[in-house]
C-alpha cells in the first residue's frame, strides 16, 4: 500500500518456462497507482506472458502477484477481473455475431440477471438492464462507437473492434487497464484518437498499462516505459531517458 491509499499492482520473482525456454525470468515490477505505463520489447520478450500471469490466465512457475496486500497469484482470472483489473487480448477477443452493444453489456459487472433464479423470475432485472444499457451507451460514446452500437461486432473495422474491446474494459469498471497492443495495426488517424482516450482515462485516475510495438505512440503517451527482453526487465523510466539509450535501441534492432 502506498501514500495515496490506492492498492498497487506488483509482482516479484515471476518465473515461467515453456518447454525449456524462459518466458519470464525473475520479473519484479511495481506499477504506479495511476498513469500510463508502456511495456515494450522484441517479440518473445515475455510481455504478453507477463500480462497473462498478472491477470490469472497463466500460472507462473514461481513468484507472486499482489494488488496492494491482496495476493493474486493463484486467483482465477474472473476473480481478478472483478477486482477492477480489465484486459484486452492480442488476438482481439469479442463475440462477433452479436451487436457491439451486447458485447459491452456483457462486460457489466455484478448482474443480478446472471443468477439462475433471478433469470427465471426476473426480480429487478429489467431495471438493472436499463441501467446497464445506459452505462454501455456511455462507454460506446466515449470510444466513439455510439452509431455502431447495433452493428454486429464482426462487421466493425479492425480499429473499431479495438475500440470496442476498450469500451468493454471500461464498462467492466476496470480501474487498471491492461491493453495488449491497443494501436498496432490501426489506421494512423484512429491512433491519435485512441491515445487521446488513454490520456483522458489516466487523468480520470486510472492506470493504463499497454504492451506495444508502436514506439512512436509510446513516446507520445507513456509516463513510464518498461523494456523487456528475453523474459527480463532491462530498463524502466521516463520515455525520454529510456528510449534514447543505445542498449535499448540495440535490443530492438540487434
Amino acid at each position, binding site marked *: 500500500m502506498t501514500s495515496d491509499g490506492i492498492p498497487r499492482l506488483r509482482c516479484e520473482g515471476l518465473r515461467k518456462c515453456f518447454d525449456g525456454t524462459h518466458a519470464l525470468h525473475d520479473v519484479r515490477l511495481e506499477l504506479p497507482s495511476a498513469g500510463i505505463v508502456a511495456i515494450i520489447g522484441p517479440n518473445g520478450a515475455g510481455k504478453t506472458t507477463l500480462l497473462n500471469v498478472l491477470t490469472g*490466465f497463466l500460472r507462473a512457475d514461481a513468484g507472486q502477484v499482489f494488488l496492494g496486500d491482496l495476493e493474486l497469484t493463484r486467483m482465477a482470472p474472473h476473480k481478478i477481473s472483478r477486482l477492477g483489473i480489465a484486459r484486452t487480448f492480442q488476438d482481439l477477443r469479442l463475440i*462477433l455475431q452479436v451487436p457491439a452493444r451486447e458485447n459491452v453489456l*456483457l462486460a457489466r459487472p455484478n448482474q443480478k440477471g446472471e443468477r439462475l433464479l433471478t433469470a*427465471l423470475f426476473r426480480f429487478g*432485472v429489467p431495471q438493472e438492464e436499463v441501467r446497464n444499457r445506459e452505462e454501455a451507451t456511455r462507454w460506446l460514446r466515449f470510444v466513439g462507437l455510439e452509431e455502431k452500437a447495433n452493428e454486429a461486432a464482426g462487421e466493425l473495422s479492425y480499429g473499431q473492434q479495438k475500440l470496442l474491446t476498450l469500451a468493454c474494459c471500461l464498462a467492466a469498471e476496470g480501474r487498471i487497464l491492461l491493453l495488449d497492443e491497443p494501436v498496432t495495426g490501426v489506421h494512423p488517424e484512429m491512433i491519435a484518437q485512441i491515445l487521446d482516450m488513454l490520456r483522458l482515462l489516466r487523468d480520470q485516475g486510472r492506470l493504463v498499462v499497454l504492451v506495444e510495438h508502436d514506439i512512436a505512440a509510446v513516446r507520445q503517451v507513456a509516463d513510464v516505459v518498461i523494456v523487456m527482453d528475453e523474459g527480463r526487465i532491462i530498463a524502466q523510466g521516463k520515455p525520454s531517458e529510456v528510449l534514447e539509450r543505445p542498449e535499448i535501441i540495440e535490443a530492438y534492432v540487434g
Partner: protein
Amino acid sequence: MEYLLHILVLGAVYTVLTVSLDLLAGRTGLLSIAQAAFYGIGAYTSALLVTQVEAPFLVGLLAGVAVAVLISFIVSLPSLRLHDDYFVIATFGFQMILFSIFNNWIGLTRGPMGIPGIPQPVILRWRVDTHLEFLVLAIVLACFAYLVVWRITSSPFGRALHAIREDEVFAKALGKNTLRFKVTVFAVSAALAAMAGSLYAHYITYIDPTSFTVMESILVISMVIIGGAGSLWGPLVGAVLLVTLPEALRFVGLPSAVAANLRQIIYGSLLVIMMMFRPRGLVGKYGFSK
C-alpha cells in the same frame, strides 16, 4: 387416431429432451452424451416411488428431478474444470455406468425385467387416462420446458452462456465465473431430461433399461443437431422429425430388425450430411466454427 396421438405424445416427450440438450450443447457449447442417463434417472425414480410407496405423480416427478440434479453435480464439478473434451468423455463414461446400474442392479431396478405397472398420473383430481389427456399433459410439460429455457436464454444469464460458447476466455476476462454457469446449466438440463423421463414412464407404464442406452443419448443429439442447435424452433423440429421418421419407415413394410438398423443408418447419415453441408441444422442460427 390413437396412433396419431401416440406419435404426438412421443414428439412432446422428445421435445422436452431435445430442449434440455439444446440448452446445454446448443446454447452453451457443452456436448453431453448423458441425456439418456438423466432421462432414465427421472423415469426410474418416478416409477419406483409411484409403484413402491404409492407417491402421487407430481411427487414422483419432482423427486426424479431432484435426484437428477444432485447426480449432475457429481458429474459436472470434477469434469468441467478440465478441457471440454474431458467433459464429453466424462458424460460418456457416466452414461455407460448408469446404464450398467439400470441393467445390473437387479435389487433396485429389476434389471432387464424392468418395472411394469406404472399407474396413470393423477394430478390433484384429474386422472389422466386417455391418450388425448396425456397429450395435453405432455404439451403442458413441453411448454414448461420451453418456457424455462427461453427465460434463461433471453436473460443476462443467457447472454453469458452464449459468450461462454463463443469465447470462454473473453467471458472470464469480463469477470464471468464460467464454471458456475456451466454447472448450473448442466443441472437444469438434467432436471428437464428427468422430467421427460417421468412423463415417459407414466405414459408407457413399463420401463426397462433398453430405453436409456447410449444410442438414446445419440438420438437426442441427432435431434438437436438436425433441428438446429441454439435456435428457438430447432429442438421441436428435430424432435418431431426424428420421431415420425421411424414410423414412416414402418409403413414401407420392412422387417423390424432391418427397420431398426435402417433408422440408425439414416440418423447417422443425417448427422454427417448436416455437419458437412448445413451445420446450423434445418432452422438453426449458429453453426460451430472455430
